[in-house]
């Protein structure tokens, strides 16, 4: 990475490329004159409007708060009009072809029918983005997400996620969060902000906001959004649907706050489990443990909880050794600079060793690669933050998950 001086020089060289158009001051003054004219017209109109407003104020009027209601379902489908470029039928047809033959081999007949587009748009990073509803070949209503393969643009749209539709009478928003939306199906991005959230909400929703526990608090916007009923936004590469929350607004009113729905092909699948027993260093959980194996990690939206160390399929239970257990150890790295070390539980809590503590600071987020993601960075779990530097190569870590108040969590299982 260049030094500060190098960066300044490189930015300066980049900026020198731009040249102003001829007579920029004339363009500015033209805008100024137009703006002044608008103000004068607006002032005249305001004077007249004041008279009307006074008359209205004298008459009691009960303001009716605008109501939000999910549009009536279209059979088993969401009854939402298409968001974005509704008229771009070429993209919809391209997505349909990708859905019918995701392996790239032409299908003898269309597998999906009664296709209804929910979103058709272009994004500067993902390329074309399309979300479709349709019946599949077995008659099940499905929801699918498509983005371009940026590595091979000629491949067109790729099927990224294919899910069963939820109850259309109750669904206010659908979403996808993944770092596997830009290259070949299932491959992860490599840049620090390589995860994307695609969110589409019901008509009537005026703004959306996506937040993630992987983003530091001071970077999170707190004002209500008025950015429309669909949103495509970048997130840190460690973000997943588990760590992401979607909020919808009508004006300043929050209509819903909900976890993101799920990930893309290749992403780890979170299996929900419930705590049914606990000890100092472990918890026993209950749930569908069919796909659960020893060595998989458990987490909440806040962070990593521990590692599966035993599975009892007959009882549908699993034992999770907590990250603070002396029996737990894993490779770890600092999020901001990827300085590597190991984390260990000990009698006092959690500690990171084998890392130069001149390179990590108090408050730095510490990550552990999720084996179910089959990638070092994508979907990595936040195990905690540096609480205090102990010596030149170790630091104590404050776990991010609330280990004392565990009720439910998710075991991260690799996709098939």
């Amino acid at each position, binding site marked *: 990475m260049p030094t500060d001086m190098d960066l300044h020089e490189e930015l300066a060289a980049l900026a020198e490329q731009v040249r102003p158009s001829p007579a*920029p001051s004339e363009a500015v003054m033209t805008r100024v004159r137009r703006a002044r004219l608008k103000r004068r017209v607006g002032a005249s109109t305001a004077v007249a409007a004041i008279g009307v407003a006074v008359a209205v104020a004298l008459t009691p009027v009960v303001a009716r708060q605008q109501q939000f209601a999910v549009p009536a379902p279209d059979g088993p489908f969401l009854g939402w009009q298409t968001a974005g470029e509704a008229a771009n039928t070429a993209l919809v047809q391209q997505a349909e072809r990708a859905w019918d033959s995701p392996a790239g081999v032409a299908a003898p007949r269309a597998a999906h029918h009664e296709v209804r587009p929910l979103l058709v748009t272009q994004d500067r990073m993902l390329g074309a983005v399309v979300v479709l509803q349709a019946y599949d070949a077995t008659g099940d209503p499905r929801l699918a997400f498509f983005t371009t393969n940026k590595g091979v643009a000629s491949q067109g749209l790729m099927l990224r996620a294919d899910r069963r539709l939820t109850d259309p009478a109750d669904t206010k928003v659908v979403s996808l969060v993944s770092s596997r939306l830009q290259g070949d199906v299932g491959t992860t991005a490599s840049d620090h902000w390589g995860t994307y959230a695609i969110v589409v909400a019901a008509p009537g929703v005026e703004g959306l906001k996506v937040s993630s526990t992987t983003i530091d608090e001071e*970077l999170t916007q707190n004002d209500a959004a008025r950015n429309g009923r669909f949103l495509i936004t970048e997130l840190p590469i460690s973000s997943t649907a588990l760590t992401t929350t979607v909020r919808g607004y009508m004006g300043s009113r929050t209509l819903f706050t909900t976890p993101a729905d799920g990930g893309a092909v290749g992403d780890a699948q979170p299996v929900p489990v419930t705590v049914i027993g606990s000890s100092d260093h472990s918890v026993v959980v209950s749930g569908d443990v069919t796909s659960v194996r020893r060595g998989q990690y458990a987490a909440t939206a806040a962070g990593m909880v521990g590692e599966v160390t035993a599975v009892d399929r007959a009882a549908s239970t699993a034992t999770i050794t907590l990250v603070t257990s002396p029996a737990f150890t894993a490779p770890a790295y600092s999020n901001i600079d990827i300085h590597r070390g190991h984390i260990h539980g000990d009698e006092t809590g959690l500690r990171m060793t084998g890392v130069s503590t001149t390179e990590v600071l108090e408050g730095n987020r510490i990550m552990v690669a999720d084996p179910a993601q089959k990638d070092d960075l994508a979907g990595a779990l936040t195990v905690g933050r540096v609480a205090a530097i102990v010596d030149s190569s170790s630091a104590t870590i404050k776990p991010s998950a609330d280990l004392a108040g565990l009720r439910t969590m998710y075991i991260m299982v690799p996709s098939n």
Partner: protein
Amino acid sequence: MKTDDEQLDAYVRANFGRLLRVAYLLCGDAGRAEDLVQTALMKTALAWRRLRWEEGIDAYVQRVLVNTFISAQRRRSWWERPLGWVSNQAASDPYVAVDQRNVLRRALGRLPARQRTAIVLRHYQGLSQEETAEAMGCSVGTVKSLSSRGLSTLRHDITGGGVDDASQDRGASYAY
């Protein structure tokens, strides 16, 4: 004594190029940069008489430019962004010969708006943390975080990112 418009015209002639270069680093697009600067100067012109002269017009224009950019980023509809943003930039820019500049421009463009703004103000314009906080309307602590994050992401992007070979010796277990 010059009229307000004559003073404004003189200010625009003297500073448009400088402001355009800042806006270009923020927007990544010459057309949008020109629009951003014109909008910021128009807003400044409307407040010309009310400006607190001891503050200096430059600081005011800077603040308006930054706020207008960040507000526009928040409001922009996603379908306004052209497909193939990077390739369009390369085709229209006659000065691009050095691959490193393209790498930096793409990396800069991928930063979130506030991180990009902090990087440009701190490392291109050379503003102090306090001056940057003033221009962005945030705390010095936030400027530090934004700069730190932005530099980290730029570093990762420019150097290619990803997992280095040394990671293969970590002994991580991938249980299925």
